[in-house]
């Protein structure tokens, strides 16, 4: 087979995994984002909440996603009462298990990214919001999150990109997206460089589109990055 013929055939095989990757990423990042927000709210609400969320974040960030997917899919499937329960039709499907595991995992990371952003919100801006009588929620929605998200965007972009690649782990629960297909192809043809390079190019294209979109968003949200140098707003 010619080199080019092999590459194009590989490309056609791998591209079939793109829809799986994309649906897994978008749904898990979206669900995970909402969860992360909820976790952040709980974390700020009370000491016990803070403690619980910290524990959650700790466990989910502290163990490999591979193991989490494995335990959710195969682990729950082992338990008799889970198989009897109403959840089984849902947990029976690798697709939903993958989304559950990915969303739970990215929620922990996103909560952490958000915390970094929150640390960078100037205290003065928060005080100004408090004195005009904003409820916690309004304050979060209108003042804190816009500033925090702006600060957290670079880290958030990374998290989404990591998720794109993390979906490859779904292949251990029989969902074959781009990397999964690539590995199968590697173990069929043993042309690791060629296959992984094609896979790399596909991921690069997806992630390039993603990072570009985020970069645009970042510029949009950064009024101070107009060509003029930034000026301090306040101290203290």
């Amino acid at each position, binding site marked *: 087979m010619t080199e080019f013929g092999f590459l194009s055939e590989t490309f056609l095989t791998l591209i079939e995994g793109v829809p799986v990757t994309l649906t897994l990423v978008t749904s898990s990042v979206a669900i995970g984002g909402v969860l992360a927000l909820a976790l952040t709210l709980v974390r700020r609400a009370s000491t016990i909440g803070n403690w619980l969320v910290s524990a959650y974040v700790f466990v989910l960030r502290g163990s490999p996603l591979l193991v989490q997917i494995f335990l959710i899919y195969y682990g729950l499937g082992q338990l008799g009462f889970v198989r009897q329960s109403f959840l089984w039709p849902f947990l029976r499907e690798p697709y939903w298990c993958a989304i559950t595991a990915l969303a739970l995992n990215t929620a922990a990371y996103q909560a952490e990214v958000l915390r970094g952003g929150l640390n960078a919100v100037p205290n003065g801006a928060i005080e*100004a919001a408090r*004195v*005009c*009588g904003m409820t916690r929620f309004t304050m979060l929605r209108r003042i804190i999150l816009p500033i925090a998200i702006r600060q957290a965007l670079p880290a958030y972009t990374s998290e989404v990109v990591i998720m794109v690649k993390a979906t490859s782990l779904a292949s251990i629960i029989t969902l074959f997206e781009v990397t999964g297909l690539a590995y199968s192809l590697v173990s069929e043809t043993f042309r690791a460089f060629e296959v992984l390079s094609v896979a790399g190019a596909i991921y690069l294209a997806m992630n390039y589109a993603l990072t570009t979109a985020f970069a645009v968003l970042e510029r949009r*949200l950064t009024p101070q990055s107009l060509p003029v140098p930034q000026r301090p707003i306040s101290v203290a």
Partner: protein
Amino acid sequence: MTPGREYFAARGLRGKTSVPTVLSLNDVHKSFGGIEVLRGVSLEAGDGDVVAIIGSSGSGKSTMLRCIPLLEMPDSGEIAVAGETIAMRETRHGRRAADDAQVQRVRGRLGFVFQSFNLWSHMTILENVIEAPIHVHKRQRAECIAEAEALLDKVGIVEKRNAYPAELSGGQQQRAAIARALATHPRALLFDEPTSALDPELVGEVLLVIRALAEEGRTMLIVTHEMNFARDVSNRAVFLHQGRIEEEGPPEQVFEQPVSERCRQFLTSHLARRG
């Protein structure tokens, strides 16, 4: 500018209790890391009262002002706004507000101008001003914008309405902060050195704004280092020293015949440079 002075003098005679109390602090104490910054401050202000708060740097003026909307939690003492005493409770982690909704309601009735402005850096000046009216007081957007523009015009920065805070000069930021505080029609206004970044012309204009507000019956506490301004604007003056109110009364009395030795000394340095 004597008419204003006379207007206030007349009101000053009223005495403290003739009008309903809008703001009151009762024996407020506050420490930071073991150092007592407020050592029992009590103060009342009624409708249309303009109280000037003077005192040397570090005497606790900002802290006192910040205690009213509970930006600092007083260690003890009571705070009441518009007749409503803010409920507190003791927890293991110290004193806390008992009822968050009450605190928000109370804050919604106040306007605050920070010493360091604290404009929201991610919003334009206009957005800064309409933020609270729309999102806290749930008013119509169009109406809020019209009013905000009128306010910005009044303080002379309407042409900067679409600029971000970082693009403004110090005085322009301070005026934006004043406009933001006025936009919610608060019952009481708390100003922390509202003219520190303003030139004399603008100080005069702010003076006029504050007088007009007083005539509408709004209550104001103003921390300031400009003695002329303090005298012109207020119908009552308070001298704070090391966390205590050392002198209190109509401006004529506080500025011309202070009883406290410390107050006299404080004012001397000012008077010395007036001539």
